[in-house]
């Protein structure tokens, strides 16, 4: 299986701050690092647990292909993507995306672009375990609209 060192899928909780520290370190020509952390919401006490399924080797390859396109499109110096899989408790990080560029407009836009795609089109299958049982969920209309901004 190909390894994509800028992309990780992990079944363990991760610490976004530690990832940001590593990502920012030792950069002399990068003026701008934008990052995003998606957190699992408690949805007002509904004690929902999110479960994310990926297809290892397929999901990470699809993310890598999209991220490399984004790197070229926005002239990024670098990027880092970490995505949780498995069962995720409220308050835990689901996704971390960081982008490094010379200037802030490119860093922001690339981070936004990557997140829109990850939230709407990346090959994950998402289930909510709520008080009324389990349900598989699909991208929201807002997710689709966000992603279509870049087409």
């Amino acid at each position: 299986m190909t390894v994509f060192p800028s992309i990780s899928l992990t079944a363990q909780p991760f610490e976004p701050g530690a990832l940001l520290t590593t990502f920012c370190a030792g950069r002399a020509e990068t003026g701008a690092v934008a990052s995003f952390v998606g957190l699992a919401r408690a949805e007002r006490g509904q004690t929902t647990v999110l479960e994310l399924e990926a297809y290892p080797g397929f999901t990470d390859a699809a993310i890598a292909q999209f991220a490399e396109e984004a790197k070229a499109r926005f002239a990024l110096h670098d990027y880092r993507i970490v995505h949780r899989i498995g069962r995720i408790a409220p308050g835990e990080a689901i996704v971390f995306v960081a982008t490094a560029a010379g200037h802030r407009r490119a860093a922001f836009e690339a981070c936004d672009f990557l997140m829109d795609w990850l939230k709407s089109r990346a090959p994950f299958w998402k289930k909510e375990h709520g008080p009324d049982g389990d349900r598989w969920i699909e991208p929201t209309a807002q997710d689709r609209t966000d992603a279509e901004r870049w087409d």
Partner: protein
Amino acid sequence: MARVLLFGRLADQAGWRERSVEAASLAALRDLLAAADPDLGEALGGPGVQVAVDKAIVRGEATLAAATEVAFLPPMSGG
């Protein structure tokens, strides 16, 4: 023997996630799965379900070599 993988609601519906099936083509594989579980057979051909052969999306027919991995992917939800 093809290694068959089901994801998302397809795995829940079938009650299994991975199984080895002897089939020389995707069409033959679909027929065998539908014969064992007609509801699953219908779901595998349902709207938005994609097929990946050895981790590459395939549209239409495909022959299956030995040790081929076939994954049935319901509509992706994003992360």
